[in-house]
C-alpha cells in the first residue's frame, strides 16, 4: 500500500526543484537587475560629467566619487547574494569559484595599472581618462569571463563575456565622452537581457 500519490510526488518534485535552483543561484535575476541599474547609473553619471568638455579632461572628481560609491554598494549586494546562495556548500564548485574570481579580478586590476602606464608614457587625457578608461575594463574583464566560462563549460558565461568584449569594442569608436554613454546604455541593456534569461531559466520545468 502506497499513501504517497504519484501526482502529489510529481508536484512536490517540481516545486522543490524550482525552489532549490532559486535558492542555490549565486546570481539571481534581481541581482542582475540591480547590476543593470548600477551600470546605467555609474556610466551615466560619468558621461554627464564629460559630455560637454572641450578639450576633454575626463570625469569630474564628484562624478568619480559617485561612481565608486555606487560600485561599492553594488559589490556589497553581489557578495551578500553569493554568500547567501553558497552558505553551507563545500566542494569543487567553491574552489572553481575562487580560481575564477582570481582569473577575472587580476586582469581587472591590471587594466587600471596598464592605464597608469599609458599616463606615465604620455598618452593623452582622452585615452587615459576616456576611451581606454571606459572601454578597457569591458574588453579585458569580458575576455577573462568568457575564458573562465569556456573552461567550466558554461555557455551563458561565454555569451556574457563576449557581449562585454563587443560592447567595449564598439563603445571605443564613440570617442572619449561618447564611450561612457554607450557603455552605460548598452551595458544596462545587456544585463537586463541576461537577468530576463536567468529569470526564464529558473522558471523552466
Amino acid at each position: 500500500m502506497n499513501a504517497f500519490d504519484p501526482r502529489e510526488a510529481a508536484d512536490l518534485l517540481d516545486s522543490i526543484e524550482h525552489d532549490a535552483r532559486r535558492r542555490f543561484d549565486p546570481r539571481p535575476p534581481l541581482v542582475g537587475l540591480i547590476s543593470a541599474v548600477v551600470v546605467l547609473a555609474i556610466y551615466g553619471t560619468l558621461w554627464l560629467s564629460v559630455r560637454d568638455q572641450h578639450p576633454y579632461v575626463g570625469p569630474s572628481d564628484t562624478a568619480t566619487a559617485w561612481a565608486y560609491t555606487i560600485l561599492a554598494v553594488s559589490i556589497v549586494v553581489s557578495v551578500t547574494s553569493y554568500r547567501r546562495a553558497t552558505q553551507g556548500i563545500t566542494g569543487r564548485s567553491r574552489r572553481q569559484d575562487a580560481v575564477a574570481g582570481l582569473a577575472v579580478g587580476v586582469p581587472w586590476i591590471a587594466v587600471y595599472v596598464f592605464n597608469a602606464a599609458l599616463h606615465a608614457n604620455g598618452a593623452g587625457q582622452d585615452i587615459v581618462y576616456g576611451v581606454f578608461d571606459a572601454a578597457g575594463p569591458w574588453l579585458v574583464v569580458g575576455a577573462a569571463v568568457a575564458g573562465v566560462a569556456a573552461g567550466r563549460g558554461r555557455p551563458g558565461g561565454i555569451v556574457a563575456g563576449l557581449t562585454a568584449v563587443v560592447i567595449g569594442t564598439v563603445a571605443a569608436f564613440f570617442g572619449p565622452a561618447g564611450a561612457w554613454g554607450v557603455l552605460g546604455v548598452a551595458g544596462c541593456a545587456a544585463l537586463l537581457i541576461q537577468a530576463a534569461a536567468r529569470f526564464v531559466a529558473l522558471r523552466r520545468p
Partner: protein
Amino acid sequence: MTDDGLDPVIHAPVRLRTMVTLAALRDGDSLSFPRLQQILGLTPGNLITHLRKLEAAGYVLSSKTAAGTSVALTATGRKSLDEYTAALRAILDSI
C-alpha cells in the same frame, strides 16, 4: 519497487525533498547538515533518520570534517533520482 514501479527509498516526501535538494548542487559539491535541515525544515533527529535510509541505499554520502557534517548525492543517487523521475512521468502520462 512500489506497485507503481517507483523506488520506495525515494518515494517518500521527506526523502524526495532531500534528494531533489541535493541534486540541485553542482557535481562534486556537498551541503552542510544545518543548511539542509534549515531548507527542509526538519528536526535533526528526523533528518538523520531519513539520511540513514538514503545512505544505506547508497544514494547519499555523509562526511564529517572539522567544519561539521556535510551531505552529498552520490552518482548512484543521481542516477536513481533520474530513473525515479522518469518512472513518475511515465505513470502520469499513462493516467
